[in-house]
């Protein structure tokens, strides 16, 4: 490991998780959680690093990382919108909301806009069915939304810091 990397605070968090589990192979998923939390996504360098530290084959770590939808191998945009697609949300208008976002911000589910301002994700259910339809904007849940409200709020969210 080079100096720059060893000084990397984020790498230390990853190391701490692996240490907590005695560098056991069983710690793989917990470690990937930490990597994603620290770096925002799972990049090749970290996958290789974790593979080596935990003595897990590369193909296995890649298999695990791509099996779980919580993990992402692509960097996220500056802002994220996670649209809940649970049953309650679905029957109360998710398809309309999704197409409104796609249309207004030219972004597909699971993708990031070209200017890297917005990542649009879908969640199978965020457990806020009482608030259906719900969307999580930069970590904050907005409930009982309509296509208009969502477009407005995302618009304001991604413009906030320009």
């Amino acid at each position, binding site marked *: 490991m080079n100096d720059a990397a060893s000084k990397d605070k984020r790498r230390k968090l990853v190391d701490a998780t692996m240490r907590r589990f005695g560098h056991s192979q069983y710690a793989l998923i917990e470690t990937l959680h930490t990597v994603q939390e620290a770096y925002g996504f799972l990049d*090749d360098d970290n*996958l*290789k690093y974790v593979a080596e530290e935990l003595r897990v*084959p*590369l*193909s*296995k*770590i*890649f*298999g695990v990382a*791509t*099996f779980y939808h919580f993990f992402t191998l692509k960097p996220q945009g500056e802002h994220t919108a996670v649209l809940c697609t649970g049953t309650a949300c679905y029957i109360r208008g998710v398809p309309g909301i999704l197409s409104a976002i796609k249309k207004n911000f030219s972004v597909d589910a699971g993708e990031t806009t070209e200017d890297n301002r917005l990542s649009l994700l879908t969640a199978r259910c965020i457990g806020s069915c009482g608030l259906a339809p719900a969307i999580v904007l930069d970590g904050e849940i907005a409930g009982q939304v309509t296509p208009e409200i969502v477009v407005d709020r995302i618009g304001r969210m991604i413009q906030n810091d320009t």
Partner: protein
Amino acid sequence: MSSSVKIKTLTIDERQVGAREDQTILEVARENGIRIPTLCYLKGLSPYGGCRMCIVEIAGSPKLLPSCMTTVEEGMVVSTQTERIKKYRRSLLELYFSERNHVCSVCATNGYCELQSMAQEVEMTHVHFPYMYPHLEVDATHERFVLDHNRCISCTRCVRVCEEVEGAHTLDIKDRGIDVRIITDLDQPWGESETCTQCGKCVHVCPTGALIERGKSVGEMSKRKQLLPYLTKMREAQK
């Protein structure tokens, strides 16, 4: 056989057979010359239970169980060829053929393919489910072998032989559901893999034309079926 191992008696297809208590229905059936079709099972590799071809009916159980992973029990009554099972096996095989692009007439393993001969075994005349025609890659970057995802049935024999017998674990499976694919290392071209030992075991355990040797044209790629049994035997002898 150690003296502590118990012997069980069971019935398979109306035949009384004896078995060690740790044996699976499939093993006992094969020992007794009763043929149960399999795709993902391969002697010498850990059982997987994914292809579902080896499902059997067990009296008293409403569920069909995979014989490759179900151990024998005293008094068990097993049926391997009921009309119901035969129908399901045919449907399963049709699903396999519909999943990817299995064009036998231009396949290097045409005539040596286990999927192809399975169709004959289960009396499949045609695929009545819609073909899905996914667009899939062929990885021909390796100097000796080719991985053609069009022919892969995701049985993971290659993954298991690479991990369990060769010990390299170059191969694994990525994503899930209909999107699963065999990968090498971090999903990079096979030719760039630094962990592949080029042993070729994956090619020879692959039941279809998904893994072949380079330069083999239509109908030329036969698999060395004796390779794994031989290795298994030699390794057991060493222990």
